[in-house]
């Protein structure tokens, strides 16, 4: 089904990649597509740094005793893994890369509303990353990525302020991206591109941007207060002088819970694009998927207390947050049902992006359902702070979000680079990722349920077999990530050249060349079709056979 044009004249056509050469044309660019590429490179680097820490964690956990490193060093491993992965990979990932590249194109715009702010956002990200890396290089942080007080504010002897400054700065990057997207979607849609015709990827990024804008400032002030407390030895969160450490947690999680929706919503947007394209069918229930993105964004701000059930928060507050957490599962479930209904009687094909989409739907469902276990007060008392939680969030973050990112990257790779990746290797890597992921994290549900606590460098000997399986899985998973890195790089020089629309997908980005010209469209498109008008393409949607 993939159509690859071998026209040798394509690379001679002016596009955003060959429009200008030289480092200045990249570092001072205002083109959203180049900025997206800058981000892809940066977050890939951060991803592998975070991955190294994951490897160190899993290596230590091969044996029940804490024998590789001492507990303080281990604390640094999981802290750095968390900080790098959450703030420097997951939060920016899809919006800053695929969103930056494709949101303007999908609405028929020439760029985002504020191109220079877009570039600034990348520089701010780099500055934040520099602080985080400095904290690592100078000796690390050991507070956990959650910076709980008073350990982080008073007692920790590590580079908390440096790391907090890095996260604070990265937050600005996130805010600016979100602000840019919001204004762009409101003000720069092409003629005929009504809200009801927007690709669901745009809806998803819009909802994400609302969260970024509303939530990130609160974590900024929270970390600023922690930093000030540390610097001046005062105590806002110090119980010894009447401070309330639970207040820190309220302020921290007010952002950090919606943050997980910042991470997953764009991924869900990608899945909507993949499922429609590779089922050759319009999305089932467009208004529900669009609406559920907004629903998740809003309700996501009402549930953060579920991270605090055992902290000493009031029981009535726990009831409130537990109930609302159950509620937030509903819009997510709506999406899963609608994607499934989209595939029903569709003409499904199994290219790599679709493999990642299938993986997402299954693994995100498991992750989401286990979230409901955790939302249930009685169960949470037993499994909180165990590996059950770790498995839960890795299922949604990695099994969900990272798979969506990989799927989107593969789907849009021909558009971004003008080249196709090697499909055989890609399928192989996707299967490695799926197998490796499950082998890594499913055992953690079991060990967690049986009582293995998280953030400990040692564990009871009876958990060793499952931990060894988990580490083995991590190795497979790592390989599954390295292989695409290699073939993506390879494809940029040696991959077959791609035509405008190798997948036969709908969406304005496919109406222009691969790679696109700097200003995206030769003429401003005028939109007359609804989104995902696959039926109009004349395909036989009811055959149900893969091509």
């Amino acid at each position, binding site marked *: 089904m993939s159509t690859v044009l071998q026209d040798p004249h394509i690379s001679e056509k002016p596009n955003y990649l060959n429009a200008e050469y030289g480092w200045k044309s990249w570092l001072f660019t205002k083109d959203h597509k180049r900025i997206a590429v800058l981000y892809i490179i940066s977050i890939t680097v951060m991803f592998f740094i975070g991955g190294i820490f994951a490897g160190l964690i899993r290596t230590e956990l091969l044996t029940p005793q804490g024998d590789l490193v001492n507990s303080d060093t281990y604390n640094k491993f999981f802290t750095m893994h968390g900080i790098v992965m959450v703030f420097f990979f997951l939060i920016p990932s899809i919006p800053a890369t695929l969103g930056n590249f494709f949101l303007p194109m999908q609405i028929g715009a020439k760029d985002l*509303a504020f191109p220079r702010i877009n570039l600034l956002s990348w520089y701010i990200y780099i500055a934040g990353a520099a602080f985080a890396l400095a904290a690592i290089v100078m000796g690390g942080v050991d507070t956990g990525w959650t910076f709980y007080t008073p350990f982080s504010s008073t007692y920790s002897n590590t580079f908390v302020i440096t790391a907090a400054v890095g996260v604070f700065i990265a937050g600005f990057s996130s805010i600016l991206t979100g602000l840019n997207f*919001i*204004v762009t979607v409101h003000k720069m849609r092409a003629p005929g591109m009504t809200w009801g015709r927007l690709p669901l990827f745009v809806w998803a990024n819009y909802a994400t941007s609302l969260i970024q804008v509303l939530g990130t400032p609160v974590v900024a002030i929270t970390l600023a207060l922690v930093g000030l407390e540390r610097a*001046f030895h005062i105590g806002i969160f110090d119980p010894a*002088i009447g401070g*309330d450490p639970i*207040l820190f947690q309220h302020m921290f999680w007010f952002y950090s819970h919606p943050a997980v929706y910042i991470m997953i919503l764009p991924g869900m947007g990608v899945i909507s694009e993949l499922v429609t394209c590779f089922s050759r069918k319009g999305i089932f229930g467009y208004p529900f998927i669009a609406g559920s993105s907004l629903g998740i964004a809003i309700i996501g701000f009402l549930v953060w207390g579920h991270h605090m059930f055992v902290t000493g928060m009031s029981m009535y507050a726990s009831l409130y947050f537990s109930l609302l957490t159950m509620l937030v599962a509903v819009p997510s479930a709506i999406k899963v049902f609608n994607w499934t209904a989209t595939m029903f009687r569709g003409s499904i094909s199994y290219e790599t992006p679709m493999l990642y989409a299938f993986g997402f739907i299954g693994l995100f469902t498991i992750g989401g359902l286990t979230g409901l276990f955790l939302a249930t007060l009685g169960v949470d008392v037993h499994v909180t702070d165990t590996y059950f939680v770790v498995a839960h969030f890795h299922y949604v973050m990695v099994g969900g979000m990272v798979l969506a990112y990989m799927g989107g990257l593969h789907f849009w790779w021909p558009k971004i680079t003008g080249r196709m990746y090697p499909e055989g290797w890609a399928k192989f890597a996707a299967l490695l990722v799926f197998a490796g992921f499950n082998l890594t994290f499913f055992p953690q549900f079991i060990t967690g349920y049986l009582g293995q606590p998280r953030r400990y460098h040692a564990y009871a000997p009876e958990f060793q077999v499952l931990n060894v399986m988990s580490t083995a899985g991590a190795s497979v998973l790592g390989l599954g990530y390295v292989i695409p890195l290699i073939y993506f790089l390879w494809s940029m020089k040696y991959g077959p050249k791609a035509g405008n629309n190798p997948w036969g997908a709908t969406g304005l980005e496919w109406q222009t060349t691969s790679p696109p010209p700097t200003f995206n469209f030769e*003429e401003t498109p005028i939109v007359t079709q609804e989104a995902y008008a696959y039926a109009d393409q004349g395909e036989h949607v009811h055959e149900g056979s893969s091509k």
Partner: protein
Amino acid sequence: MTESHGAVAEHSEHSPHLRHHFDSMEQQFDSATLGMWVFLLTEIMFFGGMFGAYTVYRSLYPDAFASTSLHMNPAFGAANTAVLIVSSLTMALAVRSARLGSQKAIQIFLILTMIFGIAFLVIKGFEYHEHWVDNKVPLFPTQWHHWDYSNDAEHPHQAQYAKQAQILFCFYFFMTGFHALHMLVGVGIMITILMMARRGIFSHQYFTPVEISGLYWHFVDIVWIFLFPLLYLIGNARKLI
């Protein structure tokens, strides 16, 4: 990078300030103002987080906070509020002048706004100095040991009160400190706009930078409008100095 415009936009008679990715000045202006409102929304949440924490501690320690408030000088607070309100007036008049294309008036009003803004910062600096002299700056523990409660209302638990008061003073310095920082940035922005105005680039067709700077400045004023009662006027039936 420039030749792929193709038939996208006619460059014949549009303003030199129209950026290439926009179709019209109106779209550009609307986008800029919406963008600034969204940014102010983030500022609401930034200060809102601080207000939230402040409110929690205030409800936990009402007496300590009330007695501590006696160490603030509400006259300064009220004066600062009045100063900021005037600066908002002059800023609004600057934006109005920009819409009318009166280059001279823009500059005059911008300079006036800056003067009032700096006056605010001077008064604030004087206040901070007073607190320092009275050993009320919690950022340096050496200061704190000299806290003297003998003039306050009944306080059976001095040490406890001192600790709780310390928290209020932290919030006082952080909230007014972040606010002052925003004001400094605002003054910096106005210097930039002033320089643009001196080059005569604003007209009724293009005054966006003045407009969005005005929005920012008014927002900083609004934050202070809330800070004043919350930090200076706690406590009942106060004898105001």
